């Protein structure tokens, strides 16, 4: 059996890199005394997988990780014991016991919901959204190992709304393609003819192919 855990990464904890977060979670699990599992081999490591790494500086409201368990633990017990070992900013919100045959969260992941709040009012940027979405293609410069290449962002932007001065975006995040919020911002700003504003970015949810929360398989 395995446990799917929904947790938050808020406040100052948004500054943790993905490796930092991994280490922090693994050590918290070790302190908790929960029946975790380890890999085989010479340098065994605690088995824990994250649905989607989150960039440094971005908050996460409902992030998802999964881990196999060596023996059964009730969901509420699991939550209580893990939270006793976690700092407030990384609090676990929900635990769901899944069968071993459940597809990994990482494989089910299809999209993520982002809230992008400009730190200073950006009316031109927000006003440009309808025209931006009406484009048939959105060129986007992407840095790769071998250099830079032009990608089309349009099919990866599932939805983009303006609500109360903030952008709400549903962006693809899967093996077939991923759009990052900073890429969206850069492209939108270029379209609007303004400099990309500084924003507070939060990932509000991770979605599966049904556009339903990943934690509800």
């Amino acid at each position, binding site marked *: 059996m395995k446990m799917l855990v929904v947790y938050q990464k808020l406040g*100052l904890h948004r500054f943790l890199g993905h490796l*930092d977060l991994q280490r922090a979670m693994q*050590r*918290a699990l070790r*302190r908790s005394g929960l029946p975790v599992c380890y890999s085989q081999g010479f*340098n065994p490591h605690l088995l824990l997988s994250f649905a989607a790494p989150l960039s440094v500086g971005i908050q996460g409201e409902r992030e998802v990780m999964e881990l196999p368990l060596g023996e059964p633990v009730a969901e509420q017990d699991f939550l209580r014991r893990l939270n006793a*070992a976690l700092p407030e900013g990384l609090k676990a919100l929900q635990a769901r016991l899944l069968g071993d045959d459940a597809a990994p969260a990482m494989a089910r992941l299809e999209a993520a919901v982002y809230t992008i709040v400009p730190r200073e009012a950006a009316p031109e940027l927000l006003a440009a959204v309808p025209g931006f979405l009406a484009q048939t293609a959105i060129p986007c410069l992407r840095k790769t190992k071998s250099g830079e290449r032009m990608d089309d962002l349009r099919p990866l932007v599932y939805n983009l709304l303006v609500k109360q001065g903030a952008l709400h975006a549903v962006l693809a995040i899967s093996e077939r393609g991923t759009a990052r919020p900073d890429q969206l911002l850069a492209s939108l700003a270029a379209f609007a003819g303004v400099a990309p504003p500084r924003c507070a970015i939060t990932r509000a949810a991770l979605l599966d192919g049904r556009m339903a929360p990943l934690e509800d398989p």
Partner: protein
Amino acid sequence: MNRDMGQRLEMLLEEVQRPARYTGGEVNAIKKEWRPGRTAFCFAFPDTYEVAMSHLGMKIIYEAVNAREDMLCERVMMPWADMADGLKAAGIPLYSLESRRALSEFDAVGFTLQYEMSYTNILAMLDLGGIALRGGQRGERAPFVIAGGPCAANPEPLAEVVDAFLMGDGETATVQMLEVIGAGRREGLRRERILLRLAGIPGVYVPSLYESVWHEDGTLAAFTPKVEEAPARVVKRVETDLDAACFPAAMPLPYTEAVHDRIVLEIMRGCTRGCRFCQAGMLYRPVRERSPGKLLEQAQALFEATGYEEISLSSLSTGDYSQLLPLIRGLNERFEGRRVSLSLPSLRVDGPLQEVLADSGRVKKSGLTLAPEAGTQRLRDVINKGVTEEDLLRAVREAFEAGWNSVKLYFMIGLPTETDEDVLGVAALARKVVDCYYALPREKRARGLKVVVSASTFVPKPFTPFQWAAQDRLEEIRRKQGLLRNALNIRGVTFNWHDPETSFLEACFARGGRELSPVLLRAYELGCRLDGWSEHFNFQAWLQAFSDAGVDPAFIAHRAREKDERFPWDFVDIGVTRGYLWLENERALRGQTTPDCREGCGHCGLRRFEGMCPE
């Protein structure tokens, strides 16, 4: 930090590299309330967060001070260049990780002096923290800037910067210094009065209470206290019972990976070997061990508080710890099935290596690290590194037989009396190590031989038998490095060396006097900081600083001293006497070794103090 400043800080954190270094809020961090009557101390580590969080001493002092109801201890480290510049540009003072208060708000700020090349970072941190760089310029409300650690044994280069130094172990004495500062402030005493009281604490040195007079030739003529409260000799502090000494039951757990990110158990302090180049070996005498029972208790508490995956044992000479095997067995037993590995650093090759290796089946295999320090037996005798080539090769052979494939060998270049033959001896020894590997049948040896030879540049240090010695000039070091580089062109061997300029400056700050304070201040003005990081090290600026301050660095680094020359650090009594060090110097030049003092007292001077050195 007010709201507005806090917002500017958040913006800055979004721009700098690895912001998790500057946020605090780690698991096990202690955030106490600031209130009247509680003395606020900030432990300042003059290097980056990753280095600082690897340092056991900081964690010990953090625990010792925070254990006091009437004190609090917070932490601050040297920000990386992007953050330092960002703080300055945003008008945010350097702040403590716990309560985000400016350094200037604390009652005392305490630096640990681990390395001479961190001195400009001290200035940068004071400057960013809103504290005047010179002690004499600090006002009544400014924090007391105190310092300790191994480099405090020659405090003089920082005489104009630091208000009070502590010599020796800090567990008890740091708290005593804070008691005096806290009480003095509550009584409303003036700064000068508090400094006089600090000078009365055993082991404390207040540089502004002393004056130096120099001879025409630049050597020291006299060093005398200006007031009667200042002792003519400052005797170092010693924690005689490590089981009773403070040791943290929890350590702030860094989010971003520290250089040494694991549980560290200090099994022993001090070393009886008497290697003649080694300052720590003299400074930390006498040898004191922690009992396995105490260590197991500490390991358990630290595991529960951190969840760390690894335990390492810390001491100057782990192989000499008398209870090593019981300790390793105890740790293995206790952590069986909990996935905690044990790493054993820098084992001396003549320790009970075989047994330990055999016993470490459940111990993480990290490769064998040996420090022969010199390439020939003659030179090893000069430096009293009581290790023979046979010992070394036996250890290597056993390691290869046990399935290890990597060996690291540490050497020094520029040791007193060194000839080209000694330098080439390093390569000859490396070749023999390689031969040991190929002597094993192919199916019995692990694949992928890796021998790493590292050669550092010798730095003569105070309180060693080589404190009289000259350091090789830069061009001579480069010539010897070239010689070795050519000779080490051996398959399977990697050679590491460093540009000698850093070692040259280390030599200046290791043995310089208070005339170096203006050099240091000038170097900081010229932009020097993070000097221990090659990408920031600016040798030309340093030469400029020496020149502007009218100090000749070659006179400090490259000059051999006369027997009776007065040294800037002579007033510090570390236990080992100057007479003993001179005898050792003479024995070195004759190539005579001195046995480990557990085999018979060598009369180093510690026995002048009752109870300090066990019979």
